[in-house]
């Protein structure tokens, strides 16, 4: 079984899903990104780590990245987290759409993106994580009705840490000129920046 499929199966196991969804940070910052990673790993394995232009429709990787951006934005909404906890149908939708519409297009499009676009995405990711972290920390009301206020503040703090980690990591690789992780093997497979 491929690593991506294995990860998906583990995440879909009811005790694992219940455990991760038991906290807002586990749901939003662990389960959903890991579901995207599962989809991404499967797609990367199938495409051999290269970008896929899909008969020209995904040339440059912009269309695919937009699919990822919109799907990820939708699943970051507090109401969608609540809906996934309340409705088995929405939970199934999350387990389907996050791997397929966030992870797969990301893996197939990232290697095609020009460096400027990658830099733009990193910069946006870092700034959004920081702003969201601040909003979640100072919000006077609970944003998810299914989670306690202190969990929301924890998500805010975690998003701050994510923003700082991304900034440090991205800065280091920008200065060092060396990419990292799954995109690091060979020029044809794209780069971090």
């Amino acid at each position: 079984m491929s690593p991506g499929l294995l990860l998906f199966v583990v995440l879909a196991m009811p005790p694992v899903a219940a455990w991760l969804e038991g906290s807002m940070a586990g749901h939003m910052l662990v389960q959903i990104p890991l579901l995207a990673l599962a989809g991404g790993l499967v797609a990367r394995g199938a495409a051999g780590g290269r970008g896929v232009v899909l008969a020209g429709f995904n040339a440059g990787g912009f269309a695919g990245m937009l699919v990822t951006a919109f799907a990820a934005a939708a699943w970051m909404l507090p109401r969608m987290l609540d809906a996934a906890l309340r409705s088995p149908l929405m939970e199934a939708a999350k387990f389907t759409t996050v791997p397929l519409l966030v992870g797969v297009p990301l893996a197939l499009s990232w290697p095609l993106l020009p460096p400027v676009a990658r830099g733009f995405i990193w910069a946006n990711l870092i700034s959004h994580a920081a702003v969201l972290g601040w909003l979640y920390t100072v919000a006077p009301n609970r944003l998810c009705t299914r989670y306690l206020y202190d969990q929301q503040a924890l998500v805010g703090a975690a998003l701050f840490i994510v923003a700082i980690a991304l900034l440090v990591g991205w800065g280091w690789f920008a200065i060092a000129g060396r990419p990292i992780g799954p995109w690091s093997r060979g020029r044809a497979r794209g780069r971090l920046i």
Partner: protein
Amino acid sequence: MRLRAALATIAVAAAGVAVLGVVTDGFRAATSEGVWRLAVAERPRPLPDATLVDQSGRAWLSDVRGRPILVEFFYTSCPAICGLLASRFQAGFERLIAQSEGPEILLLSVSFDPERDTVTELADYAARLGADGQIWRVVRVNDPIEQRGLLDAFGVVVLPDGAGGFVHNAAIYLVDPEGRLARVYDPDAPERAIAELDR
């Protein structure tokens, strides 16, 4: 190649904006509570009947018709938001007593902690706040199934806070004279709700 990519990007952008529009109710709400408030305001919801027991031990059906009701949900040992709700209800109650005209509005404080909030507890709570049992009634729901149905119908989510208390979404709910849930207001807004009903 470029044309295809451009068309695909435009199509994805349009579809993405449309999807985000749907899941945010036309970019008006990102939270369940926000979406619920909009939905209720646009389409009042019927409410299930429940037997309520008030601070004097009287049992009566919740199917009051013919007058608007402002409802809040609370528990007497709440250390936080229920106090704010109660103080705003007090202000609303004083306004209702002072005004001689306008609709006959009923204020209803509904406890969702029947284990601790016995009739005696409710009576103490009502006495502390000055709830008179006529215009402002403090009630509990004896039947857990009816209570569950009532909380669900009002969109109230009650979670144990791990310290013996509860966390719950706080709001003031307007039940219209037809017995439907018609509006959901911020916790500090019963006076605004009363002013709107006066118009």
